[in-house]
């Protein structure tokens, strides 16, 4: 599922999956959200979080097999709605996390997996063997709020349209050009190490975690309004 490792000031969220697949079902959601909660509880000044994964997939979105295994149409819809709700909780958890966050995307990310990546402050990616794919359009699935708000917050201009409205499988270089990711790397080890290094660099800034989270929320105010979390003013100035 996933595990949380602590290395000095860094929290490392490791996504591991059976058969290398990482599909979001209630178990995985619960796992990730617990890990984030733990990081929040144990956070100090100068903490940072980096999410890494191993194998072919970063995260492939909702576990549609689990959804469709329901006994009736009604239950299928209920299961799907449950996953939507879980994803919303996940976004909330990340947006409120009192430390900088980085996703080191070493494999494919689709739909909810793209959302998971974009929940982080910074996204690094592999140049090859990794695509970002908002498959929703091709599958005929609408993208509801607050996830649309997340895309509006994190992406701009034609990149946003191309990500959502074109069914593109976006490779590393393209994602870099579109401003969706910060940097691209060759190889799983390289992108993972780069993620850890970046987390380390940001941790060294020794930011006040609560303030960092509130500035993040102010930056993404529309998203926070839709999620129902207000940002609170804090002034504990290091004058």
């Amino acid at each position: 599922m996933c595990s949380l490792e602590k290395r000095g000031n860094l929290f490392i969220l490791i996504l591991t999956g059976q058969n290398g697949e990482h599909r979001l079902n209630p178990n995985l959601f619960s796992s990730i959200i617990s890990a984030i909660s733990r990081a929040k509880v144990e956070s100090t000044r100068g903490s940072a979080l980096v999410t890494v994964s191993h194998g072919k997939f970063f995260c492939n979105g909702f576990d549609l097999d689990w959804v469709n295994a329901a006994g009736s149409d009604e239950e299928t819809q209920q299961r799907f709605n449950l996953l939507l709700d879980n994803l919303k909780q996940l976004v909330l958890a990340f947006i409120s996390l009192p430390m900088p966050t980085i996703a080191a995307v070493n494999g494919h990310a689709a739909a909810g997996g793209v959302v998971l990546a974009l929940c982080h402050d910074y996204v690094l990616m592999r140049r090859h063997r990794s695509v970002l794919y908002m498959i929703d359009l091709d599958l005929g699935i609408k993208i509801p709020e607050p996830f649309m708000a997340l895309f509006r917050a994190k992406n701009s201009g034609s990149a946003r349209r191309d990500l959502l409205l074109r069914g593109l499988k976006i490779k590393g270089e393209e994602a870099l050009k579109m401003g969706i990711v910060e940097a691209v790397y060759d190889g799983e080890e390289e992108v993972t190490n780069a993620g850890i290094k970046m987390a380390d660099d940001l941790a060294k800034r020794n930011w006040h975690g609560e303030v960092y989270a509130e500035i993040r929320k102010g930056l993404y105010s529309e998203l926070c309004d839709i999620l129902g979390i207000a940002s609170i003013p804090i002034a504990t100035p290091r004058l």
Partner: protein
Amino acid sequence: MCTLEKRGNLFILTLTGEDRHLFNPDLISSLLKLLSQVKAQATCGSALITQAQGKFFSYGFDLDWAQAAGSEQGAVKRLQQMADLFKPVIATLLSLPMPTIAAITGHAVAAGFTLALSHDYLIMRKDRGILWMPEVDIALTLPDYINALFKEMIGDASVRRHLLLRGLKMKGDEAEKRGVVKAAYDGEAEVREASVCLAENLGKRKWHGEVYAEIRKGLYPQLSAILGLSHKVYAIARL
């Protein structure tokens, strides 16, 4: 402190002296008074240039004055006071019935950067001076109107995030490349000259000031709403 000069159709607002032009309540009041004068004397073809003498455009709110309150609570209260006093300055600039240009020949930091960003056009030095939002480093959250300003003035989500969540110190050439400023020039004289040139060219268009202001407000609806600026519909068709 600050002076207002009229040169033909140009209004030139200058932050005088070689100091950091810190926005304490006195300077903020002066700025507001002078900007109100500009508004009152506006005619067709007017334009405003805001500039500063010395190494600093402005280093933002006077944190020394805030700390002189004697207690942390007092300091926080004074910070809030300055933020509240500054809001009408931004509101006046946003509704000023003429094109506005910030000629940034020195460091524009925190509220100083905010003041510059409230102009229609930013012209900056390439060889000296930075744009910087240090709030994340000094553990201060941003008032809602400043969040809204950055959101609507800087379209690129990645740039906004680097400025606000990472406390990036942005030099002129990067600011130009990333669209934060219109243009960057080597040298103080070049920046002033380019600003006057731009102001004169814009003035020559003889725009109807009120209409100009309304169109500007329409570009920044969220910011205008937070600043309490109402919207008027004009049709003075020059057909």
